[in-house]
């Protein structure tokens, strides 16, 4: 397997190079044979430079960097050379690697939910690194930890020190991870998909923080991601990986503006952008009947209910009203906690609204007897966020896709059902042979296609998509969105598409509803919303979308909306957005803004939309 590096970059190797990989190859010995995960990876990162490593999942990005830190399982075989500041990492012993990890090389992982130890306080986890590597006393380490929290812009650091990871939001946890990685002032920071599981607004904040740290600390940085938009804002150079190999390396502007390799070209072409012309135009539907009407729908949850205690009411969705015509597509956008998923479930009566009406084709769903509602569900289908978790792991793909037919078309016999399943799988771009496989054998994109096939097999008239692509990597996101657009076009169904990313919504939706803390902020045809957003929050959401444009993106990141949504248990008075709104004035605190018509089929809830 030992190979001679053939595509090693020819650059002067001065002392500025912090990390140099030469012909790195990683393979895993499995019961099924040797699997090659990366081969002939040659890269270098200089001091003060950020290298973006881009590719789909399974391209060998993470594996290559985990390999040089000695973090792969024992069945991994690593070959080649990896020079870090004069040390050959692949020949360093476990003790020597331990001394480097967390001290000279900091690492930030993808999932801040699970990457912090759940039973240790935040402060302890940061201080521990300093005690371990720097031999500080615990008291000194704690004091330094608090400074680090301030450095990564964690609000109220003294209080956070004593909190446990589960008490923090995803964005805060990722900041803590970064603080831990920075604790010993590393020469190299490796960030492995640091923003993947976060909201766009929080993604922008974390990327802005990384860009700031790179600028001010002058360390070398590796940003592993599937998102070209993330790379555009932070990286200086980009390496594109595919199938375990580096297929193209170059300056970020060169790669994003003039890629050479056909794969990179496709990657750049398909990256989500916000363009005035790309939006879906609103079809003339004057004659089309209104299919779905929501009138003042609210959903409340009671929190902390006990036998004798008072329960607090959490208003997840607050007085949402809209109409959806047959064949129309509506995007619902907002951050986590905006009530998007709750609204999606309330539309389908998977959650009972605490007040308001949901009317589908003239029938008020909340008032129907259970049997009639069940029969109507054939028309109303949903696809979920987590593609793997929403499929029964003990059933084959064929059984999963066939199940709605067993309920809604019991007259079909097994062979007829089999034919339908084959057709449904083909429509979502999957081979019919997949019917015999189990969900865990499929990729995330394939699982989501199975979910779509299961929803589409009964030929629904309304499809609710609850964040259907946020668990997938960017190229797969694009494929799924394209598939949904195509299915909608063919079958003329109405679509409600929930997402936190406005760039995805633009590809699919004619109208967009913006939610914040369960309240409607703006409802507008997509074209006018993207061209001229009226509500300040819509503007922030738009500017948080990571664009694959190295000229614009760094400046956009620098303007990232600070802060996180307040707790829905204790919403601000007046306009709920005022605590984060850069334009808030006294009236915003006193009165709830009215839901006003703003001309041209647009509606907005803001006191100051006319002047801004």
């Amino acid at each position, binding site marked *: 397997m030992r190979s001679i590096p053939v595509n090693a970059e020819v650059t002067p190797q001065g002392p500025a190079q912090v990390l140099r990989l030469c012909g790195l190859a990683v393979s895993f010995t499995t019961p099924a044979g040797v699997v090659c995960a990366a081969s002939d990876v040659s890269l270098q990162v200089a001091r003060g430079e950020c290298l973006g490593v881009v590719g789909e999942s399974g391209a060998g990005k993470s594996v290559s960097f985990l390999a040089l830190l000695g973090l792969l399982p024992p069945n991994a075989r690593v070959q080649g050379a990896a020079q870090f500041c004069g040390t050959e990492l692949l020949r360093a012993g476990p003790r020597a*690697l331990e001394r480097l990890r*967390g001290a000279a090389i900091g690492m930030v992982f993808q999932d801040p939910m699970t*990457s912090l130890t759940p039973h*240790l306080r935040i402060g302890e986890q940061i201080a*521990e690194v300093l005690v371990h590597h720097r031999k500080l006393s615990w008291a000194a380490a704690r004091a330094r930890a608090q400074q680090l929290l301030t450095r990564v812009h964690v609000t109220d650091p003294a209080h956070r020190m004593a909190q446990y990871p589960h008490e923090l939001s995803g964005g805060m946890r990722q900041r803590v991870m970064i603080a831990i990685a920075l604790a010993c002032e590393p020469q190299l920071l490796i960030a492995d998909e640091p923003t993947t599981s976060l909201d766009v607004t929080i993604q922008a904040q974390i990327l802005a923080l990384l860009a700031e740290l790179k600028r001010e600390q002058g360390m070398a940085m590796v940003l592993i991601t599937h998102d070209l938009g993330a790379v555009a804002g932070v990286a200086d150079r980009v390496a594109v990986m595919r199938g375990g190999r580096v297929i193209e390396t170059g300056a970020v502007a060169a790669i994003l503006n003039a890629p050479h390799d056909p794969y990179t070209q496709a990657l750049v072409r398909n990256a989500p952008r916000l363009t005035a012309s790309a939006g879906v135009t609103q079809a003339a539907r004057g004659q089309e009947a209104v299919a779905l009407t929501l009138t003042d729908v609210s959903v409340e949850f009671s929190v902390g209910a006990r036998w004798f205690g008072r329960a607090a009411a959490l208003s997840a969705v607050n007085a949402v009203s809209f109409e959806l015509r047959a064949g129309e597509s509506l995007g619902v956008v907002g951050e986590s906690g905006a009530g998007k998923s709750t609204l999606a479930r309330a539309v389908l009566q998977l959650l009972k609204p605490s007040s308001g009406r949901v009317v589908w084709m003239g029938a008020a769903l909340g008032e129907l007897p259970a049997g009639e509602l069940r029969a109507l569900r054939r028309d109303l289908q949903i696809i979920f966020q987590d593609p793997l978790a929403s499929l029964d792991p003990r059933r084959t793909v064929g059984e999963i896709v066939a199940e709605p037919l067993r309920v809604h078309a019991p007259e079909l016999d097994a062979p007829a059902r089999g034919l339908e399943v084959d057709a449904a799988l083909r429509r979502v771009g999957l081979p019919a042979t997949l019917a015999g496989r189990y969900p865990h054998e499929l990729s995330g994109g394939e699982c989501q296609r199975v979910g779509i096939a299961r929803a589409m097999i009964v030929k629904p008239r309304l499809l609710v998509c609850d964040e259907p692509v946020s668990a997938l990597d960017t190229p797969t996101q694009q494929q799924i969105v394209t598939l949904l657009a195509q299915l909608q076009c063919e079958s003329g169904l109405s679509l409600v598409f929930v997402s936190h990313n406005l760039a995805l919504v633009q590809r699919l939706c004619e109208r967009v509803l913006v939610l914040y803390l369960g309240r409607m902020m703006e409802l507008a045809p997509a074209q006018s919303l993207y061209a001229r957003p009226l509500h300040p929050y819509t503007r922030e959401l738009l500017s948080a979308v990571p664009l694959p444009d190295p000229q614009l993106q760094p400046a956009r990141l620098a303007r990232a909306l600070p802060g996180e949504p307040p707790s829905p248990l204790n919403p601000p008075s007046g306009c709920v957005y005022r605590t984060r709104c850069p334009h808030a004035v006294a009236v915003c605190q006193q009165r709830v803004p009215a839901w006003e018509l703003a001309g041209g089929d647009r509606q907005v809830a803001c006191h100051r939309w006319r002047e801004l």
Partner: protein
Amino acid sequence: MLRYALRRLGGLIPTLLVIVTVSFCIVRLAPGGPFDQEQTLTPAVRANLDHLYGLDQPLAAQYLHYLGGLLHGDFGPSLSQRDFTVTELIGQGLPVSITVGLLAILLALVIGIPAGIAAATWRNQGADHGLTLFAALAVALPSFVTGPLFALVFGLALHWLPVAGWERGAPRYLVLPVLTLALPVAAYLARLTRASLLEVLRSPWIRSARARGLGGTRVLWRHALRPALLPAVSYLGPALAYVVTGSLVVETVFGLPGTGRYLVQGAIDRDYPLVMGMIVVYGALLLLFNLIADLLYGWLDPRVRHE
């Protein structure tokens, strides 16, 4: 935390009341009565006995009378062991059973959890295979086999320890019963700890702790161990139940004057107050152990911590 513990302690009372009520009904549903086996009783004597013990009253009245007694700590008279009250019987036997039972659980924890950690640390090596095999054997062997076996080996063959007896809890007499009772619990705890520690060691936060350069020992003790102990802690309640039922065999084999035999013998004799007394005492112990397990849970995992 203290307030939570006190409130939970208060919550045990209604649970105990349910246990008393249900077991009272079940015990009385069993066919036959306390004096059925004494064939020579004339109807008049029989009626006298029933009257003496209040068995001729309606069931509801007996139930209320029993509850009233319980409030005073009075479990009533034993029907099979005349001249003794149930309170006296339990008061004599329970210290023996509790000493042996708690020591057994303690020993099981002290052996089982470190053994599980060792097996997980050296997984798939000789020590792990040895421990896993030994644990499987210890779980499978019933105590009426291991007990006499220990007595044979350590008592009769090697003369290290006495074969049976109590002698006011002299340590020499405690070793074999405690060991017999602890062995399967320790083995089960070892298996639980091994499996859960291996799972925790595969979790993302362990990888992330290793990426911070923390050494293997520190990762194990500080980051992996506490969550890995959760299954072992939840097993504390069932372990107590096992020790309670196991005490019958062990106390018989080693001739200990404990309460283990009362539950079975009392049930066979239809000695209603004795059976009820045992159920109430063991029920309370079990509830207490589950409460301790719950509180430990909160200490091990802040996500389930209360208030």
